[in-house]
Structures are given as C-alpha cells and as structure tokens.
C-alpha cells in the first residue's frame, strides 16, 4: 500500500472513530437546562471558598509548624494541603466549564452566531484545559504557585455574575414570551 492509500485508510479509520465518539450517548454531558439552574444558586460556586483555601495554604502556617512540630508532621500537613489545593483547582476548572457551557447556551439560542467569536471561545477553552493540566502537574510535583489563584478566581467570579444577570434576563423574556403566546392562543379571553 503506497503513502496516499495509507493516508486515505488512516483518515477513514479516524472518521469511524470520530463517528463512534460523536454518536455516543451524551448522558455524561450536562444538558443546557441543567446548567441554567447553576445561575440560580450562586452559593454553589467554588471560587467563593478561595479565602479559606488561601488561609489553609499560607506560608506562615507552614513555617510555624516547621518550627514547632516534627518534620514528619510538617510533611504530612503539606501533603494534605496540596491535596486541598488540587481539589480546589479542579473545582475552579468545574466553575470555568460551567460558565463556558452557559456561553454556549447563549450562542445556541441566538438567531445569528459569529463564527469568529465561537472559534475564539473554542480556542480559549482548549488553551485553558492545557494550562490547567500543566498547573496541576506543577502542584503534583510539589510546586505551589498559590498567590495567582486569587486573580484566577476573581476572573471566574466576575464572569459568572455577568452571566447570572443575563440568564435571569433570558428567563424573564422567556416567561414574557410564554405569557404573550398563551394570551394570543386564548384569543382575548383573558381580557376584560
């Protein structure tokens, strides 16, 4: 088999794999309607727990423990705290993904969608995932760049507040639309 035929064969196999993946039951993917519920419960945002996490990871605490306790205890506390930081990072990613999905819901409801905007968002999402994995590796290897997590949380928080307002607005508009439709269906029966 020569190179062009091999390429064609490989491409066909890739298409079959993609088809299998794309038609897989998306039960694991959250539905847009489920995501809308997120906007109604801002307390569920993990970013709100950042002060506690930062407190738990404070360098002063580690120094104090190192000066008073044994080396083994200090190591154990560091290990536990790293676990907390990793869990927090994962939750932060969860927050990011929820907001990202909300943005897709807004796009799917829009009568006109800008290809450039959507492509840019996809690119940003991929970049975020890549960087997130890199930072996670950094944590796992024992490096803790914690101070910057604060500004990360801030960005997610600001975005979510903006989206919450919009989703509320969309909900009101949907309710208004439904009310209008029902009064039209009633052919004026609800008018005095």
């Amino acid at each position, binding site marked *: 088999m020569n190179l062009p035929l091999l390429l064609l064969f490989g491409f*066909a*196999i890739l298409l079959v794999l*993609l088809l299998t993946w794309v038609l897989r039951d998306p039960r694991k*993917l*959250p539905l847009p309607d489920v995501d809308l519920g997120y906007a109604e419960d801002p307390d569920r945002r993990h970013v709100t727990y950042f002060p506690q996490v930062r407190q738990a990871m404070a360098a002063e605490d580690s120094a104090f423990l190192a000066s008073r306790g044994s080396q083994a205890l200090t190591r154990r506390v560091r290990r536990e705290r790293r676990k907390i930081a990793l869990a927090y990072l994962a939750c932060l990613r969860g927050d990011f993904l929820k907001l990202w999905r909300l943005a897709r819901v807004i796009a799917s409801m829009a009568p006109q969608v800008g290809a450039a905007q959507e492509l*840019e968002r996809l690119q*940003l999402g991929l970049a975020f995932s890549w*960087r997130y994995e890199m930072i996670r590796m950094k944590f796992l290897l024992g*490096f*803790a760049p914690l101070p910057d997590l604060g500004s990360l949380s801030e960005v997610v928080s600001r975005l979510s507040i903006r989206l919450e307002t919009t989703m509320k607005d969309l909900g009101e508009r949907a309710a208004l639309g439904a009310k209008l439709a029902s009064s039209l269906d009633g052919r004026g029966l609800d008018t005095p």
Partner: protein
Amino acid sequence: MRSLALNVRVLWGCSALLQLIALILLFAKGGFRRLPFFTVYVALNLSQVAFLVFVYSIWGSDSAKGTILAWSSECVTLLAQALATTEVLKVTLRPYQGIWGLAWRALAFTSALVVLSVALVTHGDWSLAMWFELNRGYHLTFAAAVIACLLLIRYYSIPVPAAYKMILGGFCLYSCTEILIHTVMQSLVKKAFYAYEPIWQSAPTLSFVVVLSIWVAALWKPLPIEVRKAGPPSDSIYQRLSPEINERLRELNEKLLRLWKLEARPQ
C-alpha cells in the same frame, strides 16, 4: 458477458427487501412528510437495484455500457444522499438558527477542504480508475462534512432524537466503509480487479444492508415532529455578551499562563 455472483444477488435481494420495508415504514408512519428527500433517496435506491439488475442482465457487469450506466445511476443516488443528509441536519437544527448558519458554513468549508485534499492525494491516478476515485472522494467529503456537523451539534449540546441520529450515523458509516473497501481493494487487487469483482460488489452491499437495518429500526417508531422549541430571540444578548465572555476567558487564560510561567519554587 458476465452475470452477478450468487452471493451478490442474495445480498442485493436482502438490500431491496430492507429498502422496501424502510419505504413502507416511511409512508405508514408519516415520516415521508418530515423527511421527503430521505424518502426519495430510499425510493431511488430501490429503483437503482431494479435498474442494475436490468442493465447487468442485458449487457453484463463487465461491459463498458453496463459500467457507465451503473455509475451514472450511482451519481443520482449519491446526489440524493447528500440532499437527504442536509435535510436531516436541517430538521435537527431548525430551532437553532444561529447554529444552523454555522453548521452549513462548516459543511461547505469541510467539503471544500476534503475535495482539495483528495485531489492532491490522488493526483496522477485519475486515468486509472476515475469512477472509483470519484466515488471514494465523494464518500470522503460526505463523511467528513457530516461528522464536522455532528461535532458541532455535540459541542453545543443540542439534543438529537435517536431516529435522526441513527439515520445520520447510518449514512456516515456507509461512507466510511465505502472508503475503506475502495482503498483496500485498490491496493490489493489493482492488477487483477475483475478476479475480485464479486468481493468488491458484495462488501459495500453488505455494509449497506447493515445500514438499512439501522434505518428500519430508526423508522419503526414515528419520527419526532419538533426537536425542541427555540428560546426567545436573543441576538442582541449574544452580540453584547459573546465578545465580553471571550474577553473574560482570554483574561483567565492569561492568568493561567502567568501562573505556568512562574519560577518553580519547591515547597
């Protein structure tokens, strides 16, 4: 003059029977109203079986006239296939005007890209087996374009009814197996094609029989009327929010990048 092998005739018989069942189901359950192009496609395929049996019994499968007539009929069904698929995609994405706008652009872009790639890859081989190259090129373009659209649908978490998913999946599966069969056959039996003709004739028919079985299962229940009601028109919201969201996401990415570039400090 050579006639069709027994196994090929049996497979053609199975294929014709399943197409007939699919057609009956489309009319009996009212699916022809929702998917008229798909109905025409199934009907054309059924007519093609009859046409090919007639052509091969008169001129044989190895004559030039028989080959030209057979491939010409294939062109008609391939065109119908493209129209039927676009119809299913349009029905699925009807409530999502913006996404449909994006999808048809993705379809056009992917098709153009694959056609160009196929032309480059098969450059110089056209005189050898033009019909095979054209057929494979078509299936390659078709499968890539439909999968691109399905990816888009999945990305936006748009719910697709199982029946439509099965129809689209069937089309794609058939195209993918066609590409694989043509590629393997071309590499293995290039010099002695006619010796392997029954295999070449039966393999795609077998895959089509599988696809038809999937379609019959999909058409067993009436097709859903409407996938989902669209939300309120929110063009201004999208226009206003989309750049803002992207800006925030970009900001977040920059923060992450800065975090990554930090001097590594052992804890």
